[in-house]
């Protein structure tokens, strides 16, 4: 399974756009990039998934460059309730998710 590298933590002010990066230098051809969000004492929640270029849904955008060795999750205009751990996962679409340590995002008023 491809290994991912994310910042351990980051702070952002309420109302700003937050960009969370993830490195996955050894991503394989069949691998997809998936992002999850987790609040304390809750199970993770699916945010978005992509293979290449840009994917957008109602909560986030995912930017993937042509070489696919990295990706960026963009959260528009964050609120305090977006404070959570964000996980970047890389792997085949077989529902055997490989989570790393994730990125703790803290939204400041």
């Amino acid at each position, binding site marked *: 399974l491809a290994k991912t590298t994310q910042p351990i933590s980051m702070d952002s002010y309420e109302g700003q756009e937050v960009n969370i990066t993830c490195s996955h230098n050894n991503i394989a051809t069949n691998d997809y990039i998936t992002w999850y969000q987790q609040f304390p004492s809750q199970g*993770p929640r699916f945010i978005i998934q992509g293979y290449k270029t840009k994917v957008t849904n109602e909560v986030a955008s995912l930017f993937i460059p042509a070489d696919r060795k990295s990706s960026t999750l963009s959260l528009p205009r964050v609120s305090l309730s977006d404070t959570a751990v964000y996980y970047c996962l890389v792997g085949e679409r077989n529902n055997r998710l490989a989570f790393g340590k994730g990125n703790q995002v803290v939204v400041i008023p």
Partner: protein
Amino acid sequence: DAGVTQSPTHLIKTRGQHVTLRCSPISGHKSVSWYQQVLGQGPQFIFQYYEKEERGRGNFPDRFSARQFPNYSSELNVNALLLGDSALYLCASSLPTGGNEQFFGPGTRLTVL
């Protein structure tokens, strides 16, 4: 519609004991996966079941076992509990074509003393 449900919410056991955790998937979801999350770490994949058959297994000892029932609910069993088994155990369900979009339950917090 109800989400993924897990029982019990919390559980305290002593070393050497056995534990059974239960999971009910979202209606219509036939795939169930189990994860272990130790404090401060991301969830680690334990098992995946689809149509009552094991489809994947993570790097966990044989003390861990699971099964899926005809109604697609699932049980995770852990024998000979160790202190290191203390964790949040998460169950997730998905559609067969879910493609890594899994729906997680709230988890069962297991404490081994």
